[in-house]
C-alpha cells in the first residue's frame, strides 16, 4: 500500500533526481537548471516597488575572476614608471580621468562610469576573495552565505515571473548559490552564452501532438496521485512542470537565444564568450531579469602580466563599451546598473617573471548606469597604487551600494535557519556619494 511518508523520508536530492528522470522520460525535456530559481518564491516581498525614484531595476555584474591588475586597467600611475611598467596611459571622455591605454573604447565611455579606486579586501587567495566579493562575508566552515543575486531575489523578487530572475553566465556555479536562503533564491548558471537555456525546447524526436498527448497522460496519472497525496511538496513538483511548460511556450524564452541578434550587434560586443555573455545579459534585462552575472577569468597574471593583461583588456574593452553604449541607445542604461568587480588587485612591484602577484590592499572596481554619476572617481590610492589614501570601499560596501541602487533595504536582516542575522553587505553602508 503506498504510504505518503515515503515522500517525506526521501531527501531533497533524491526527489530531485526522481524529477529529472521523470521529466526526461515522460516529456522528452529537461529544464532542471531552472528548478531552484523558478519554483515558488512565497516569502519575498512580492514585487516591492523601488523605494527611491530613478532607482535601477536590473543589475549586470561583471566578475573579473583571478584578480584584475588595477595599475594596468583603471588606476594607472604614469608619473611612476617603476610601478607602471610598459602599460600606456590615455585620457578619457571625462576631464581629468586617465585609464590604461589597453582600454580605449572604455575611455570613450568614461562619461557614464564611476570608478572605485579605493577598493580593499582582507582576502588574498582566489577562492576566499571571490567568496567575499560575491557574498560580503568571509568563508566559514559552518555556513554557506547566499550570493548577491540571491539577496536581490530575496529582497525584491522577480519582475518577470515567467523566467528566472537571477542568471549567471560563465564562471563557477558557486557564484549563483542561494546559500542558506535555499535553492529557490539561487541563480541559473549558464556555461556558455551561445548555448542559451539548455534543454528548454521540445526534443526533435517528439512531435507537438505527441508532446501534448504525453502531457495529458502525465496529467491523468498525476490526478490520481495528487488525489491520494495532497501534500505541499508534491504540489511543488507539479508546479515545476507548469513552470517548465509556461517557459517552453513563452515569448520570453527568445531572450536566451542570441541567434535573434544581428551580426553587427554581436560584433559590437566581441565574438567571444565574455562579449556574447554581455549581449545575453542585455537581452535578459530587456525581459526584466533582475540580476545577471557575467564572468571572465584569466586575470591571474603572475607571469607576463603586460602581455596577458593587454589581451584580456581587448576582450573586456569591447564588451564593456559595447554593453554601455547598447544599453544607452535603447534607453536602458538609466534603469540598469552595470557593476564590474574583482577579488583583489595586483602588486605595484613587478616580479621577476614580468608579472604581478596578489594584492588585496588596494584595487579598482567600477559602476555605470543605474543612477550612478558619470565621469566620477571615488577613492584614491597613493602615488605607487600601494595603499588607499581615501575612500576605502570593501566588497560589503560595494554590494550594499548595488543594493541601494536597486532601492533595496540594505539594513534588512535576514536570519539563517540557525537564527544568525545577516544583511546584504555584512552591515556595511552603501556609498551614497556615487549616485547622481
Amino acid at each position, binding site marked *: *500500500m*503506498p504510504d505518503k511518508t515515503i515522500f517525506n523520508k526521501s531527501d531533497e536530492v533524491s526527489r530531485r533526481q526522481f524529477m529529472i528522470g521523470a521529466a526526461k522520460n515522460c516529456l522528452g525535456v529537461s529544464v532542471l537548471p531552472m528548478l531552484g530559481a523558478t519554483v*515558488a*518564491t*512565497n*516569502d*519575498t*516581498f*512580492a*514585487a*516591492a*516597488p*523601488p*523605494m*527611491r*525614484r530613478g532607482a535601477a531595476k536590473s543589475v549586470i555584474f561583471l566578475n573579473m575572476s583571478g584578480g584584475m591588475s588595477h595599475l594596468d586597467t583603471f588606476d594607472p600611475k604614469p608619473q611612476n614608471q617603476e610601478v607602471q611598467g610598459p602599460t600606456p596611459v*590615455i*585620457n*578619457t*571622455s571625462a576631464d581629468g580621468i586617465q585609464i590604461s591605454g589597453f582600454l*580605449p*573604447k572604455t*575611455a*570613450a*565611455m568614461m*562619461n557614464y562610469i564611476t570608478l572605485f579606486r579605493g577598493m580593499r579586501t582582507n582576502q588574498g587567495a582566489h577562492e576566499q576573495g571571490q567568496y567575499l566579493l560575491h557574498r560580503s562575508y568571509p568563508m566559514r566552515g559552518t555556513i554557506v552565505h547566499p550570493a548577491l543575486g540571491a539577496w536581490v531575489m530575496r529582497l525584491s*523578487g522577480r*519582475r*518577470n*515571473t*515567467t523566467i528566472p530572475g537571477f542568471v549567471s553566465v560563465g564562471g563557477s556555479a558557486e557564484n549563483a548559490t542561494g546559500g542558506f536562503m535555499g535553492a529557490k533564491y539561487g541563480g541559473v548558471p549558464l556555461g556558455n552564452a551561445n548555448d542559451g537555456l539548455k534543454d528548454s525546447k521540445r526534443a526533435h524526436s517528439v512531435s507537438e501532438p505527441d508532446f501534448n498527448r504525453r502531457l495529458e497522460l502525465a496529467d491523468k496519472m498525476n*490526478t490520481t496521485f*495528487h*488525489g*491520494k497525496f*495532497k*501534500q*505541499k511538496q508534491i*504540489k511543488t513538483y*507539479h508546479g515545476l512542470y*507548469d513552470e517548465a511548460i509556461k517557459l517552453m511556450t*513563452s*515569448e*520570453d524564452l527568445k531572450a536566451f537565444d542570441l541567434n535573434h541578434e544581428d551580426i553587427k550587434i554581436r560584433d*559590437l560586443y566581441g565574438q567571444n564568450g565574455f562579449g556574447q555573455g554581455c549581449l545575453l545579459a542585455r537581452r535578459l534585462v530587456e*525581459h*526584466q531579469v533582475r540580476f545577471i552575472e557575467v564572468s571572465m577569468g584569466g586575470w591571474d597574471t603572475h607571469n607576463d602580466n603586460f602581455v596577458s593583461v593587454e589581451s584580456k583588456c581587448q576582450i573586456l574593452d569591447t564588451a564593456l*563599451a*559595447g554593453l554601455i*553604449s547598447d544599453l*544607452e*541607445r*535603447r*534607453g536602458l542604461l*538609466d534603469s540598469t546598473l552595470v557593476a564590474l568587480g574583482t577579488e583583489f588587485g595586483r602588486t605595484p612591484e613587478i616580479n621577476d617573471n614580468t608579472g604581478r602577484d596578489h594584492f588585496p590592499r588596494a584595487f579598482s572596481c567600477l559602476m555605470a548606469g543605474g543612477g550612478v554619476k558619470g565621469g566620477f572617481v571615488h577613492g584614491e590610492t597613493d602615488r605607487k597604487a600601494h595603499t588607499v589614501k581615501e575612500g576605502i570601499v570593501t566588497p560589503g560596501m560595494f554590494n550594499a551600494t548595488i543594493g541601494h541602487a536597486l532601492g533595496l533595504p540594505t539594513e534588512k536582516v535576514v536570519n539563517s535557519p540557525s537564527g544568525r542575522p545577516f544583511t546584504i553587505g555584512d552591515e556595511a553602508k552603501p556609498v551614497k556619494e556615487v549616485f547622481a
Partner: protein
Amino acid sequence: MMLNISFRNLSISFTVLMCLQLIGLGQDVDYKKHIAPIMASKCNSCHTAKKKESDKKPKAGLVLNTPTGIRSGRVLEPGDASNSELYIRVSLPKNADDLMPPPDDGSPLSTKEVALIKKWIDDGAKFSSGSGGALGKIPADLDARKVKSMPAREPNADAIAYLEDLGATINPVSATLPEYLSVEWISTYYKITDKEIEQILHIAANVVEADLSRTKVTNEGLKHVGKLGRLTHLNLNRTEIGDKGIEALADLQSLEWLNLYGTKVTDASMPIIAKYRDLKAVYLWNTAVTSNGLSTLRKALPEAKIVRDTDDRAGRFDNLDDPGKFDF
C-alpha cells in the same frame, strides 16, 4: 486508508456540487462580493500586507487581502482550481497538516465557501467583474488638461484589478507616493492592442509612467495615451507608431523621458517633441530622424539628453569601432 481518502474526496466533491447548485451554477462568482469577504473572515488575520513598520509580517510572506498580493503569492492557477494552492490548502482533509486555516487556530472554511473559491478559480480567478463594465464609462471628453487638474487620490482598486486581469503590471513608482503608478506589460506585451491600452484611462489621474514597448499600439491608440496628462515617462520603443501618433501626444507637457527607438517617427515629429519643456531624455535610435531633425531638437532643448545611436554633443558613440579617431 486509501478507501478512507477516496470516500472523503467523493463526499467533498458531492457537497461541492450541491453547493454550486445552491448558489446557482449559472451565477458568476465575483471577487469583491464573494471571495474578498471569505478572505477577510478566514485568512486575513494572518495574511495581510504590512501598512506600517510595526505591523506584524504576513505569514509565509503571503498577502491575501489585496488582488496584487493574491496574484503575486503564486497560489493561483487561473482556470484550474485543483492545481491552485489557494483551493488545495482550504480543501484538504480535516486532519491534514497543511490545511488552512490551521485546524488549531481558526475555523475551517465552510463547504459553501470552498465551493465558491473553486468556482471562482475555475472561471479564471478574475479580480474585476470581467468586462470592466462596473467601472463605468471612460468620459468621451477626457483630455490631458482635465486629467492633470484631477486630484490624484488613491487609485481605483477595481480598475487596477481589471488592468491586471488584462496582463498589466501596475506598481506605485515609489513606496512614498502610492497614488502615482507605473503601468507596464511584462511577458504579455505581444498580445496588447489599442483596446487594452485604452483601459489605462480608468486610472488616468494616477498614471505617471507607461511602458508600451513592443506592444501592438498604433497611432490611433496613442490618442488614448495623449490624454494621460500626468505622464512623465513614456516608452514606445519597437512599436509601429509614427508621426501621426506623436501628434496625438502634443498635450503631454509633463513628459521627462520619452523612448521612441525602433519606431517610424521622422523629423516631422521633432517640433512637437521640442515643445516638451521638461524633457530630460529622448531616445531616437533606429528611426528615420536625420541630423537636421536632431539639431531642431537640440536648439529647443539644450539641456536634454538626445540619443540617436550617437550623442552628438559628447561625440560618444560615433567612433566606437575606431577609437583612434578620438581626440583626447
